């Protein structure tokens, strides 16, 4: 069974009298271990789709099955728990807590994990996650003392802290220069090779090249789903 199953997902915003349809019936299935790039021009609905996939937003209609569980209509607390346990987020603007050390940023999600871990255990896991992204030596630094690439690595370590099966990355290289972009994208490739499903949202085809499957969106609909090498032509 697929990790993510979307059936006829519709999302409509109501702005005053007017209905603005953003997603017009999306059907999509993503398997465990895939590396997917979600592409499209701005306004194509890719961010809305990603918010729905990431349990941050609810579809207006349609079914969203995650790991066999219907989440589109699940309670807020259940969805929060799924976000905590099964989903990792990486944002364009890193979204690290200011004046808080890298390590504390990384272990922050653990404080919302049910059945709390001891502080020592949290730190141990946090350091391990930082090691994985290769900046364990910067554990005590605050975001302002880190470069953009390092900050994004801290954000990736934070996304990994609960060993989620899937990581969503929204324009992860949008604020980085080309050199560090390559490093960060290599990181995602490495994670994917370890079996983690990676879903990228990007408008850059260069970045999309890293993915094994590219989904193009336009005007609220999927216009093409290309697999593997074809995407890179």
């Amino acid at each position, binding site marked *: 069974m697929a990790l993510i199953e979307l059936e006829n997902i519709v999302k409509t915003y109501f702005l005053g009298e007017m209905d603005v349809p953003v997603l017009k019936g999306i059907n999509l299935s993503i398997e465990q271990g895939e590396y997917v790039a979600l592409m499209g021009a701005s306004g194509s609905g890719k961010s809305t789709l990603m918010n729905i996939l990431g349990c*941050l937003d609810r579809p207006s209609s349609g079914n969203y099955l995650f790991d066999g569980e219907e989440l589109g209509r699940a309670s807020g607390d259940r969805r*929060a728990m799924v976000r905590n346990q099964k989903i990792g987020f990486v944002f364009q603007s890193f979204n690290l807590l200011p004046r808080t050390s890298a390590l504390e940023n990384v272990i922050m999600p653990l404080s*919302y994990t049910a059945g709390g871990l001891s502080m020592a255990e949290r730190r141990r896991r946090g350091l391990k996650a930082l090691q994985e992204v290769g900046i364990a030596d910067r554990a005590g630094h605050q975001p302002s003392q880190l470069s953009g690439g390092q900050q994004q690595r801290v954000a990736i370590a934070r996304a990994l802290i609960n060993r989620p099966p899937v990581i969503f990355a929204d324009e992860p290289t949008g604020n980085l220069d080309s050199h560090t972009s390559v490093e960060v994208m290599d990181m995602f490739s490495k994670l994917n090779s370890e079996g983690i499903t990676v879903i990228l949202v990007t408008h850059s085809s260069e970045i999309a090249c890293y993915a094994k499957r590219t989904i193009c969106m336009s005007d609220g609909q999927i216009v093409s789903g290309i697999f593997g090498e074809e995407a890179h032509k």
Partner: protein
Amino acid sequence: MNTADTVLMSLKALVRNPTRTLLTMLGIIIGIAAVITMMEIGEGSSRSIRESIEKMGAGSGLIRPGWRRAAGVNMGSGSVTSLLPSDADAILAECPTVALVSPLVRASNMQLVFGSANWVPAQMYGVSPEYFTIRDWQLEEGRFFSQREVDINARVCLVGATIVNEVFSGASPLDCEVRIKNVTFRVIGVLKSKGANMMGMDEDDVIMMPWTTARMRITGRRTGSITGTTSTLAKKPGEIYPATGVAFYPEQDSNLAADTLVQPRFTFIDQIVFSATDPNKIDEARKEVTALLRERHGLAPQQEDDFRIHSASDFLKMMNTTTSLMSNLLLGVAIISLIVGGIGIMNIMLVSVTERTREIGLRMAVGARSRDILKQFLIEAVVLCLVGGVLGIMLGHGAALLVESQLNWPIESSPGAVAAAFIVSVSIGIVFGFYPAWKASKLDPIEALRYE
């Protein structure tokens, strides 16, 4: 998310911006400090008032003769001499809540002479031995007089500390002979100093002697105008007009004298002092004494009392009214300042929620539930208020200590006020922190993450 983590997190968040945190807390600090200082000063002064009233004898009462009206003109206090020594005996015998009774005879403006020194004591009292217990007078040296000395009009007296200084130049006056109105008295005791009373009068400028002595030997035999002629103390007509002449009345023969019951000491006293069995029962005792005296004085129901009863509880009530009025007033001011402080907290918390919108969005994205966010901001507000409260308690206590050392006002630390300050600061945190926290918890994570 467990509470200890949240508290730690909010402490970190507050330390991140120390100046703002301090300024936000200032309202609470000042409010709580004001409450604590006022409570400590208030407790201290009411304690000192209570002590000075207890020195006067908290459970004691004073009965004075009332006044007489002649053709609508009030003749003033003491214009009737209505109290009898037998009244004192009856009060003791018939009022169950009265423990001790002492008649009191006042002698004023009497010169005391000792050797070449002389002095006019402010007060000269004739009392019974019970008086010293009722008024809580202690002995410096010597002894009190006994009931027997009262019975025999003994010429003994006790002197206060001021008299020891003024007349005896500080030397022990025991067994010295002093003269008052050419009557010699032996000093048998020195009273312990009480200092000035609440009215500023020197309580140590006093001489005490058996009341019978004061009445019979010093002030003269004051007799009532109505009953005077039946008294043995009145002079016979033959003595008033010593010349030989016509006898106005037949001389008493022995038969007539035997048939006529003459009260041997039919004399009036100035005041009666009594104490209740329990200081709290003083009002009950007053009622019993009033009923008994009205009956003994044969007053009809519509007639007003021919005596007045005063008790220290009157002072206590008056002082309590004053102090509670003052503390209520100050409490009102403190509550206003705490509300202002609370609004400051709410204001800053709202700013903080807006400022940290992205943080809230992020926390929600990594799995924080609405209630986790609510808890975080609520606890932050409570911690802010609690820290402010603790600082306020310390500041308030410090200010009270300063007042004590600089102004010599009595203070008393009040654990109740400290506990109340704690509860109030936590409540302010919850009340004024709730709205911002609720607002934070209702943020949409997508909007919050995008917020610039």
